[in-house]
């Protein structure tokens, strides 16, 4: 072998080694998985539980402002004293760490804690009793998966006699009907899904059914509206077309109001904005629509006759003052004729939440303003400023009266005393 052939031989060997090295070292696609990458059954259960926890808005009561999620401690003022929502993280000492799925289902379904204590109905077990065992198990699995927080429950601050839980036996006899949701075979799957969500996890009845002096709500009054205790907001009736009855609404507007916080017919503010922000915005389009279908189909029950023309009479001087205030302060957003710029600025003409019997929410909006909730589908909502510092009681009453009766709105006038009463109650 001459020198040239030797060099060629070595070069050939080197090339061979290099090629082998490249072949071995070069990254390749990972071997195909045994089965297509799909979340495990466990992951799907937890995701479902998280979704249901949002539908049930657990976080709203069980998380202190700025506190760790689900660690409890948030005060809930009631007419009977302050209640403190408990820690529902899986901490074994202070939370639900030692609970079984059976314990959790009994609590949700019967309102009885693991140790047999009867729960106060601030926990909406009268609604949650409708939740299926499968959904309860998913919720349980999810809550067991969140970070445990060691935080002792704060004792409730209830006055006598409400601090005696034996009284709850009486309350339960009067107002509690235990039982999972039973589908109505005469209705479709979508209606039944909506009913399940509204009556069950959504616990809409907690606000939208009037609470009586015993803190109970009667089934015959379901969804007929009422003042929300200790919040000074009025939760309108969902069954009366004079209030928030949705019989006249297009389905998409109802679904939008729930999921987006705004619609072409009206906007959510105050406690309902919080519900949308914490809970309803996370619903799937299908579930929001199912709730809309059920709500729209609620049987219409007018609990009050429409106001007589006598009741709608307004002093012309009040009307003129209201019109002037409206032109300066309100027309830029709500339009010269109350037509609004929906969904950014809600219409006032033909808006049931303006004309309904209780003027509380309208007066509050004028005094304190409000922002629609920032949601996945409406992350940059428009808002209304407070006018409490610019308008006196007479002007507030006049402008609220004006929007309740102008443009063929069929509301009734409000008095400066009503404005004053709310002004004193509200934060300034």
């Amino acid at each position: 072998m001459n020198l040239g052939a030797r060099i060629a031989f070595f070069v050939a060997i080197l090339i061979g080694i290099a090629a082998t090295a490249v072949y071995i070292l070069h990254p390749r696609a990972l071997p195909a998985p045994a089965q297509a990458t799909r979340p495990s059954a466990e992951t799907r259960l937890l995701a479902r539980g998280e979704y249901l926890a949002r539908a049930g808005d657990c976080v709203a009561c069980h998380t202190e402002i700025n506190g760790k999620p689900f660690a409890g401690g948030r005060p809930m003022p009631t007419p009977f004293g302050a209640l403190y929502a408990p820690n529902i993280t899986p901490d074994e000492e202070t939370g639900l760490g030692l609970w079984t799925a059976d314990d959790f289902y009994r609590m949700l379904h019967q309102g009885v804690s693991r140790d047999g204590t009867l729960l106060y109905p601030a926990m909406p077990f009268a609604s949650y009793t409708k939740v299926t065992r499968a959904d309860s198990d998913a919720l349980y699995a999810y809550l067991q998966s969140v970070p445990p927080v060691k935080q002792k429950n704060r004792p409730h601050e209830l006055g006598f006699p409400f601090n005696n839980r034996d009284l709850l036996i009486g309350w339960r006899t009067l107002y509690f009907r235990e039982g999972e949701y039973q589908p109505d075979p005469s209705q479709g799957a979508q209606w039944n899904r909506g009913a399940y969500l509204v009556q069950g996890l959504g616990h809409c009845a907690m606000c939208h059914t009037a609470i009586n002096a015993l803190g109970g709500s009667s089934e015959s009054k379901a969804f007929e509206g009422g003042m929300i205790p200790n919040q000074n907001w009025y939760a309108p009736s969902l069954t009366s077309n004079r209030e928030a009855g949705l019989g006249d609404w297009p389905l998409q507007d109802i679904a939008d109001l729930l999921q987006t916080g705004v619609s072409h017919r009206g906007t959510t503010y105050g406690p309902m904005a919080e519900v949308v922000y914490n809970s309803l915005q996370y619903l799937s389009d299908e579930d929001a629509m199912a709730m809309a279908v059920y709500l729209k189909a609620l049987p219409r029950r007018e609990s009050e006759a429409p106001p007589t023309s006598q009741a709608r009479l307004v002093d012309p001087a009040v009307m003129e003052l209201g019109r002037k205030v409206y032109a300066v302060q309100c027309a830029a957003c709500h339009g010269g004729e109350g037509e609004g710029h929906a969904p950014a600025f809600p219409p006032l003409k033909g808006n049931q939440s303006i004309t309904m019997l209780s003027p509380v929410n309208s007066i509050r909006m004028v005094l304190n303003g409000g922002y629609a909730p920032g949601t996945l589908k409406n992350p940059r909502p428009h808002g209304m400023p407070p006018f409490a510092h610019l308008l006196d009681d007479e002007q507030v009453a006049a402008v609220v009266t004006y929007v309740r009766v102008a443009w063929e709105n069929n509301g009734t006038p409000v008095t400066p005393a009503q404005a004053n009463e709310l002004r004193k109650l509200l934060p300034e």
Partner: protein
Amino acid sequence: MTRALSLLLATVGLALAGTPVRAQDATTPAFKEVDSIEARVQGCVTCHGNAGQGTRDGYYPRIAGKPAAYLFNQLVAFRDGQRKYPPMNYLVATLPDAYLREIAQHFAAQRPSFAPQTTVQADAATLERGRVLATQGDSRVNVPACTACHGVALAGMEPGIPGLVGLRSNYIVGQLTRWRVGDRHAAAPDCMARVAARLSDPDIAAVASWLAQQSPKDAAPEPANLQRMPYACGSTGAR
């Protein structure tokens, strides 16, 4: 089109009304496009003015031109309850971070002219004490000058320190007092709490009176880290 029409109608309504209830001013809702940040922040204008310049009456602070990170921190603190003022807590309770940041950036970029000074009821000795505290501090009680952190022109410093000019004395007194009693906090380490703890009531009144009398020329905050600050401040770190 409907927008223009309704504005027209509103204007006509105003003209027909003869003497309007209130003259059109900085606190009256007004904007050009519904789909704009100006329209979205109408919820702020009756207290803070259309451009964040503050309003003639009351306690409501000027927010225009304050550093965006400062305004964002305050909005988040109002939403989450670390800073307590019920009307603000209520208004921003359900607004997400990204939107609060946009609102903060909007008002930080505004440069409206300053409102006329308010007359301050304070004697010459009080004002002099206020001037000394604001511009030199008081080493005997370990209080640094306001200008050491809030900028030589007291127009604030990027990214997190607010301007003090253009604020009214009752707002400044309110904030310093809240800080001193532990009612208002900033991100740890809370430098303002250290300062407020060393201020007496008369000192708070003096510095607030003097600050309220200053007429600023340049409203822009100083750039970050132009000078070394006497205390470590958590709020200087932008979120």
